[in-house]
């Protein structure tokens, strides 16, 4: 690996809480706590940090972090626009470019959510003109939008809702081993099927948690990482993309091309990502696949090329995504569905833990991990992480 290879050298997070329950301290203080924890983990101090990147209109601006942490010169500050958790791997792409080009030396990527103090994430706002052709009909929230895609997927593939439930159960099983997870009670398929319908065919247990908390990582070059007392984890590739015809995708227009309507908005991006990382799907030992909704995670397994189109249900029901014996264990911390919903950034941290060998559901000899942002929104993003 070249000395410029971007590497994650620190991870940190706060305690994870149910949404709206953090009222005695600010969202910004959570952001700072996560960043400080990541800095300590990496063994870097604030004078070394010269970049901040985030996504989804995170309110904790780099200027505030610069001041609070006492940074010296910040040379890169960037935000991935819109798309909710679709952008969760976008900061890795921006930081990688900056580090490869020598435009920044140590970049912190972070996401903090404290929804009781601002607004509930996913809450409807008439921000874009096209909402005039969605909201008046009562289509206002993410699960309703994903439900349209999920219903079509079931129709096209003949899959049963139990395939969605298998994603729920796999994530929850992993969360039972993770002391940081918000939801640790074991679940059965009967529990899944009995959970109340939110927007058919999606039930409550098809939908991710809503959480308060923060998570952060520290990224630097392999060359600089060698001077730190840490095991660097390489970002082999990270990308973001809006594919043709997807526009705002699930989040309003639903004008995606017919041939990819039941897709992830990441099909072509993923092919490019694997080519750039120079690894194959078979090389992936463990994956962290964004799980806002079970249906979109299932579709992503097909679209990202981990199983054939239309075979996602058979793939997951064969036990393929289960820890420890499946061929592709996913969301080993419990994911957005059971660990916490820090907008998918928890999945990035878990990818690093797997390659360090420190997960609570550790896959033996994990060397390469695939991480994705949210599906069917724009921009989508994904990353491939690898041991150095």
């Amino acid at each position, binding site marked *: 690996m070249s000395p410029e290879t971007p590497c994650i050298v620190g991870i940190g997070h706060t305690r994870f809480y149910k949404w709206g329950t953090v009222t005695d301290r600010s969202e910004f203080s959570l952001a700072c706590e996560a960043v400080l924890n990541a800095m300590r983990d990496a063994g870097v101090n604030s004078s070394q940090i010269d970049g901040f990147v985030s996504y989804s209109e995170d309110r904790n601006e780099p200027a505030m972090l610069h001041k609070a942490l006492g940074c010296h010169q910040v040379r890169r500050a960037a935000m991935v626009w819109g798309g909710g958790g679709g952008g969760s791997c976008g900061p890795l792409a921006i930081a990688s470019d900056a580090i490869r080009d020598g435009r920044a030396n140590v970049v912190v990527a972070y996401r903090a959510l404290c929804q009781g103090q601002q607004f509930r994430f996913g809450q*409807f706002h*008439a921000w874009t*003109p*096209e*909402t*005039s*052709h*969605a*909201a*008046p*009909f*009562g*289509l*206002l*929230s993410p699960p*309703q939008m994903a*439900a*349209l*895609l*999920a*219903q*079509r997927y079931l*129709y096209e593939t003949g899959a049963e809702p139990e395939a969605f439930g298998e994603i729920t159960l796999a994530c929850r099983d992993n969360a039972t081993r993770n002391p940081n997870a918000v939801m640790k009670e074991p679940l059965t398929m009967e529990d899944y099927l009995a959970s*109340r*319908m*939110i*927007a*058919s*065919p*999606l039930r409550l247990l098809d939908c991710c948690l809503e959480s308060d908390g923060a998570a952060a990582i520290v990224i630097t070059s392999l060359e600089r990482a060698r001077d730190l007392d840490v095991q660097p984890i390489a970002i082999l590739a990270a990308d973001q993309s809006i594919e043709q015809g997807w526009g705002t995708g699930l989040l309003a227009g*639903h*004008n995606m091309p*017919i041939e990819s*309507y039941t897709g992830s908005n990441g099909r072509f991006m993923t092919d490019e990502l694997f080519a750039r990382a120079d690894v194959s799907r078979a090389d992936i030992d463990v994956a962290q696949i964004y799980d806002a909704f079970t249906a979109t995670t299932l579709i992503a397994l097909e679209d990202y090329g981990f199983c054939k189109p239309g075979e996602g249900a058979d793939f997951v029901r064969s036990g393929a995504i289960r820890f420890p014996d499946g061929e592709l264990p996913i969301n080993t911390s419990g994911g957005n569905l059971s660990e916490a919903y820090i907008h998918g950034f928890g999945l990035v941290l878990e990818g690093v833990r797997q390659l360090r060998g420190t997960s609570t559901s550790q896959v033996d000899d994990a060397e390469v991990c695939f991480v994705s942002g949210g599906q069917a929104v724009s921009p989508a993003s994904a990353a491939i992480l690898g041991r150095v």
Partner: protein
Amino acid sequence: MKTDETMEIVSVSGQRPFAPRVSDFTQRFWLSLAEGRFETTVCKECGQAGFPPRPICRYCWSQSMHWRPVATTGHLYTFTRIHVAPRAFVALSPYAIGLVDLEDGLRLMCGILNDDNPLEIGSPVRMVAVCHEDGPLFAARSVKGMKQKDF
């Protein structure tokens, strides 16, 4: 394919739970809809149509658009029945919304008028104008004699 027929107008009491925003450009669409005419824009340069109506062609970027009728029959492409409704829609829940593929190739999102039968993907539907006291919306209704209740 008939695109010149007038839509059935279903009158309902009360206001729309969440009224669309009407601009100088889109008011033609909503005024026509209130009279049972379902229209969109077509590019004068390249002939491409789209829905919703737009002032700039997304295929050739021409700003020369004209209005034409939209097909009022099609098939249900997908749907969801919403059981946990946003506050403004609680009184209507559970209610159904879906995507409709119209016979002229356009796809749109809309409400589905309540009926007592399970919804099915692929069902033939007809578009209707649903006129509330404060203005119109449009909705799909099964051609196979769905019973119309309050929308």
